[in-house]
């Protein structure tokens, strides 16, 4: 289980086995999804995972 952090807004998620595919905070009018797509980081490692597929949001 990892507490992933969104690289665009910096919010940390509750523990999950798989990387969250999108960020709830960023997919809202007061923030934004990076033009490069969503990316999540691990707290300790630089376990970068990019999601550039079109998310159903």
């Amino acid at each position, binding site marked *: 289980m990892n*507490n992933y*952090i*969104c*690289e*665009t*807004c*910096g*919010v*940390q*998620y*509750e523990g999950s086995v798989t990387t969250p595919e999108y960020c*709830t*905070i960023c997919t809202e*009018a*007061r*923030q*934004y999804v990076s033009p490069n797509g969503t990316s999540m*980081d*691990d*707290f*300790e*490692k*630089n376990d970068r995972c990019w999601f550039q597929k079109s998310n159903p949001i």
Partner: protein
Amino acid sequence: MIDAGFKNQIQFEEDRLYSFKTEPKFGIGQTAYFIQTEGFNIVWDCIALIDDHSFKEINELGGIDAIAISHPHYYASQVEWAEKFNVPVYIHEDDKEWVMRPSDQIVYWSGESLELQNEIVLHRLGGHFKGGSVLEWKDGNDNKGVLLTGDVIQVVADHNWVSFMYSYPNLIPLPASKVEEIAQSVEKMKFDRLYNAFHNIVRDDAHNSVQKSAKRYMEALNGTLFNT
């Protein structure tokens, strides 16, 4: 993050006030603050990283008793921080739906104000977020008072002025009526200096800056400020 070379930098701001942020910039790149008051130290807003160096340095400054957050964009790793220092995180209950990592460390407060200590009061202003809040530190700045605003009140390029937006990245303004309401609430607070979440500071006469900025904003929205 740590493996990728991110580090927190802590900086002295003024008597009993420090700021800290992550370098190089991570996420939104906000600055958080640490206030020392009589028997009660508080962190205002949060950042994504907590590293050994910043944990140690904050402990050397007396440790912390509570964390309070202006709004969801700075929730960051608040639970990680709260667990590490074993302290509560105060969040306005109107923004509960935006908490992405629930925890027993989170204390949801309600209503318009919460006195955490006699010189530290949280006030809900709403606007940017429904539960959007500011921290009034009455004794800071040689007893003239400090207001920490996140970007519920935003310091703009001219540091004698502030602004108020629903969405900063997407440039969506707030209604004039809401800004008037915010200005009326802030009018009652004691401060002469204002710090935002990007280390921009209205150094002096900040109370007046908020009032004149709200007036300008309302005139702009109402179409009476300019004729272009």
